[in-house]
C-alpha cells in the first residue's frame, strides 16, 4: 500500500526561506535549495515551496530556485503561491517542479483547475484550501488567509474534485502556527468526501499530532513547517514514532 507522506513546507520570499506564525511575523530561516536538500537527505517524502513574494518580478526568482533545487533534490517538489495562469504553471513545471499548488486564483477562476488538469494531468494540480471555522461551518479564505470568500469549505472541496484537482492541501487557519495539532474535525470531514489525496496542514507541534492526523483525520500526507525548520522535531523522529505506532511510512 501507498505510504503516508511527510512533507516539509518552505515559505519562500524573494528567494529566501521564511515562515510566519499565523501568516505574520516573518523570520528568515535560510536558503531554499540547501534546506530542500537537507530535508530530502533526512527522510522527507516530498518538498513544498510556497512563494510568498509580493511582486511579479520576484516570482522569476522562484523559477530559478526551482531550477537549482531540481539539480540537487530527487524527490517530488510542489510549488505554490500566486499562480494564476497556465503559463505560470508551464514555466514552473519546465523548471523542474512536479506539482503546482493553486489557491486564490482557483477561487476567482475555478476554470483554471479544469484547464490545467486537462493540459498537464491532474496528478500535478494541487488545490490549496485555507479554511477557518465560523460558528459551525468552515469557510474558505483566500489571499494568504486575509479574505473570507464566503464559500463553504466542504462544498468547495466537492467542486474542486469535479473540476479535476489531483490533491487537496488543506490548511486550518485556526490551527496554523498554534502547535496545538491539526483541526481533526475538519480534516476527518474533508477526508471522508475526498476521492483524491488530502494533505493536512496547520497546527502540528508534537509527535502525536502527526499520528492523530493519519488515524483520526485520515490524511494521506502531513505537511509541517516551523517544527522542522526550528529543529523542534526532525523528520526522522516523526517517522520513528509513526513506525512504532504501526503506520506505514517510507523508511
Amino acid at each position, binding site marked *: *500500500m*501507498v*505510504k503516508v*507522506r511527510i512533507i516539509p513546507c518552505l515559505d519562500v520570499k524573494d528567494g529566501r526561506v521564511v515562515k510566519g506564525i499565523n501568516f505574520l511575523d516573518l523570520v528568515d530561516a535560510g536558503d531554499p535549495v540547501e534546506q530542500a536538500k537537507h530535508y*530530502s537527505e533526512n527522510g522527507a*517524502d516530498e518538498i513544498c515551496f510556497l512563494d510568498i513574494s509580493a511582486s511579479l518580478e520576484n516570482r522569476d526568482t522562484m523559477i530559478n530556485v526551482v*531550477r537549482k533545487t*531540481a*539539480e540537487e533534490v*530527487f*524527490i*517530488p517538489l510542489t510549488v505554490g503561491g500566486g499562480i494564476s495562469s497556465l503559463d505560470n504553471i508551464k514555466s514552473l*513545471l*519546465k*523548471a*523542474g*517542479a*512536479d506539482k503546482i499548488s493553486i489557491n486564490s486564483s482557483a477561487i476567482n477562476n475555478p476554470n483554471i483547475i479544469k484547464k490545467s488538469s486537462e493540459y*498537464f*494531468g*491532474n*496528478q*500535478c494540480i494541487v488545490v490549496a484550501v485555507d479554511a477557518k471555522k465560523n460558528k459551525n461551518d468552515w469557510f474558505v479564505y483566500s489571499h494568504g488567509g486575509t479574505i473570507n470568500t464566503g464559500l463553504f469549505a466542504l462544498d468547495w472541496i466537492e467542486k474542486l474534485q469535479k473540476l479535476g484537482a*489531483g*490533491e487537496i492541501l488543506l490548511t486550518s487557519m485556526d490551527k496554523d502556527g498554534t502547535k496545538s495539532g491539526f483541526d481533526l474535525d475538519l480534516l476527518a470531514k474533508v477526508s471522508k468526501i*475526498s*476521492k*483524491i*489525496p488530502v494533505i493536512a496542514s496547520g497546527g502540528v507541534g508534537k509527535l502525536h499530532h502527526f499520528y492523530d492526523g493519519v488515524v483520526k483525520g485520515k490524511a*494521506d*500526507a502531513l505537511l509541517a513547517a516551523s517544527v522542522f525548520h526550528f529543529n523542534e522535531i526532525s523528520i526522522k523522529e516523526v517517522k520513528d514514532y509513526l513506525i512504532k505506532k504501526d503506520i506505514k511510512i*517510507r*523508511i
Partner: protein
Amino acid sequence: MKQITIIDYGSGNVLSAQKSFIKVAKENNIETKVIISNNLFEIKKSTHLVLPGQGSFSTCMNGLKKKPGLIDELYNFAIVRKKPFLGICVGMQMLASDSKENGYHKGLGWIEGTIKPLPNKNLKMPHMGWNIVKPLKESNLISTSMDYYFVHSYYFDCINKENKLAETQYGISFASIVAKENIYGVQFHPEKSSSQGLNLIKNFVS
C-alpha cells in the same frame, strides 16, 4: 565516453530526469554526456536511451509520431541493435502492445501487454506516493524490495509473466518493472525516488 539521451517529444518534466542522470554520473565517476534531444543522429550515436512520459497515453504516442523517423530510430536502437533502453512512467507504458486509456490506442508493441485502468476498489486515484517495488527475479536493475515514487492511474498488464520483473500492490498486484532483454520499463519515477531511485539509474547506466 557514453552518451545517454533523454528523448524529447514535448512530454512534461524531462529536466528532472536529465539532472538525476547527471548526478549519478558525477557521483560514480561515469564518463557520459546526458542530453535531452529528439535529433535522430544524436539518438543513433547514444549508448543509452531514456523514454520519459507524462500525461495521457495517446498524447505521448502522438508526440512520438509527430517527429518523422523517431519511432523507427528508437526501434532500430532497442530492437535491432539491442542497446540499453529505459522507459519511465508513460514511457514504460508505451512499450506495450496497446492501451485502453480513453479509447483504444496502439503502443510501440515491444513488450506484449495492454495498459489498463487500476481497479478503483475505494482506493484514491491516481496511485500517488511511495510504494514497495518487489523484485520477482534477479536483474541488474534492482535487488531488494524498496519504496519508489509512483504517480499513475493505469498499469501494464503483461501477457508473458517472464516480462514482469517486479511487482507492486495497489488494490491489485501490477507490474512495476517490465523487462525484455535490453529493454526496461519502470512505472514509478526513479528520478524522484531519492537514493534508491538514483541507485536504479546507476544500475541501468553501469
